[in-house]
């Protein structure tokens, strides 16, 4: 049990740490994936602990599908951004002034 909990926390930790320090758009998509994998694991784990494994697994499956779409769209955007701005550095492509 504890192994899974540590796994979840480790995935969250890596994900958040990555989001905090990365500026590259593709790396952001990757760490986002890691973060969501932690969330999926947490869902299954919560289902098991709550005695309703089926619910946890089905929610996890839904999240996996949605998350895949996010990754695909995110990568497609990254390709477009690279073509248009010639860089993947997020602060550099920011055009909003405030």
């Amino acid at each position: 049990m504890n192994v899974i909990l540590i796994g979840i926390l480790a995935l969250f930790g890596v994900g958040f740490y990555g989001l905090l320090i990365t500026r590259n758009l593709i790396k952001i998509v990757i760490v986002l994936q890691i973060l969501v994998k932690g969330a999926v694991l947490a869902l299954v784990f919560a289902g098991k602990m709550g005695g309703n494994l089926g619910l946890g697994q089905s929610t996890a499956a839904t999240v996996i599908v949605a998350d895949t779409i996010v990754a695909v769209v995110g990568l497609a955007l990254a390709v477009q951004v690279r073509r248009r701005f010639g860089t993947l550095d997020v602060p550099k492509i920011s055009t909003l002034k405030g």
Partner: protein
Amino acid sequence: MAGILTLLVIGIPWLGAVLVLLVGDKHPRWQHALAVGFSLLSGIDALLLMRFISSASSVDLWLSTAFGSLTLIPDGLAVSLTAIATVVGSLAVLFSVDYMRGEKQLGRYYFLVLFFIGAMAGLVLSGNLLFTFFFWEITALCSYGLISFHNDDPLAVRGGIKALLITQVGGVGLLAGALMGYSQLGSFQIIELLARANTLPAPTLAFIAFAFLIAAAAKSAQFPFHTWLPDAMEAPTPISALIHAATMVNAGIYLLARCSPAFESVPYWRESVLAVGMISALLTAFMALTATDLKRALAYSTVSQLGYMVYAIGAGGIVASQFHLLSHAVFKALLFLSAGAVIHAVGTRDMRRMGALGNTMPFVRNAFIVGALALTGLPIFNGFWSKEYILEVGLESSPLWMYLLMLLAAGLTAFYTFRMTWLVFFGSVRDSLHVHETGTAMKIALGLLAFGTFTTWLLFGGLSAQLAESLPQHGLHTESTWHLVEALLSAPSTWVALLVVAASLMLFYIVGRRAALTAPPAWFNALSESSFGFELLNRWVVSGMISLAERLRLTQSGELNWNILGILACLLTVLAVLWWSAS
């Protein structure tokens, strides 16, 4: 039936607001027609609602444990204010058809006006303090949007922000009071607060009472928050008539009148209310003496008359304050709309440049004079009966020196009103101004309001009966119109007040006409322009808020990594709180 009507009186203007926006600015004729149609419908709806007045809630919608239930209570206080808001609102919209002709962004204008009318009805009908607060904030937002309607004019933008920020102080007061009540009573219902006020600990009740007094003073532009209203005069004139004379500024009076039975036992509360009303009435009457801007002079007199209403509530005269509120809404809307017709015609607000306009605009002159006589408080007009009634109540149950000062304010009112009328419509031509025709829609609106100024005092008996029957916790008595007339005409204080007014007019006739055009002494001018020093306080509130906002803007860097850090910090805080409350 009553439930449907109460929902409709909020829903009709809001539906109209959305439709006006959807029609788009390319069809101004449709926008005018829709706005007039929907505001008239809501006015008719409010008048129909008069027949269903009761102290029971007509709509009772359970929402959640946190919000309680949304109740709409069509009692006498709420319905009379709803009727004022919607009827004066529809006349102001009708007036706008001529006044705003050719403006580019009519959709935004009518949207905000109609949204405001609905929110004002909601504010007074709501029996749940939390929803009163929501509607209160919507009215503040609409008022801001309309003051700054000409958003390329820096003065208008500054006036709007000042009004928004200072009325926010009131909003915070209302919310703090409501939450304090909730923490003790477990309910936001005003009825609960009134019924169980005696069971509250004294400090809690005092906190609620003074928080509501601050809310009312900020919303109704009373001392020491009285400086936002004159700056709000950058709004288009129908807005000044509707929001800043007849409706929104009455929300504070409404709040005090609604909750006053609960706070009567709070030490110094009534004295504070009396003092706030008296100081506002007197200070702004002095300030109106030197004003050269027609609309600012009217704004000062609005604050002054609102001061009379606050004073009446402090003296325990709920009916008197509501009666004066009704009279004031009608005659001040008339004065503002006449002033709007003048400003629309000559294109300036500076009274020193006007003069002898009565010859070229006889209809507007007559309408303005009717309003001015009512403001002065001369017999037959509605302002006379209500102001004398307030003074009568004040003589009975406030210290004598306060009564005498209010009498002085009445004299000053007569003086500045005649100064204003004389500067605009009489005397000699001082500047070659090109005068436009007054439109038909303007004339209809002015004519109806002038008729109201002659007649609304006849409604006193009905108003008093409605209030007495539907507000059991206020302990009011029904009085007939005839009884009021008899009582006032036989009271010596009425004749004293009339004598003061006459003396003031005499003084104006002898010295004022010449003095009106010469600049007042520099020290007096400086004093009145700085609102007797309180302008500084208000400016401090506004500039403090703006600089705080500037500092907070640093946190909005738009950088992804910083935002993630913020999200993480919030998440950890929530987790820590949950952990701490669980253990």
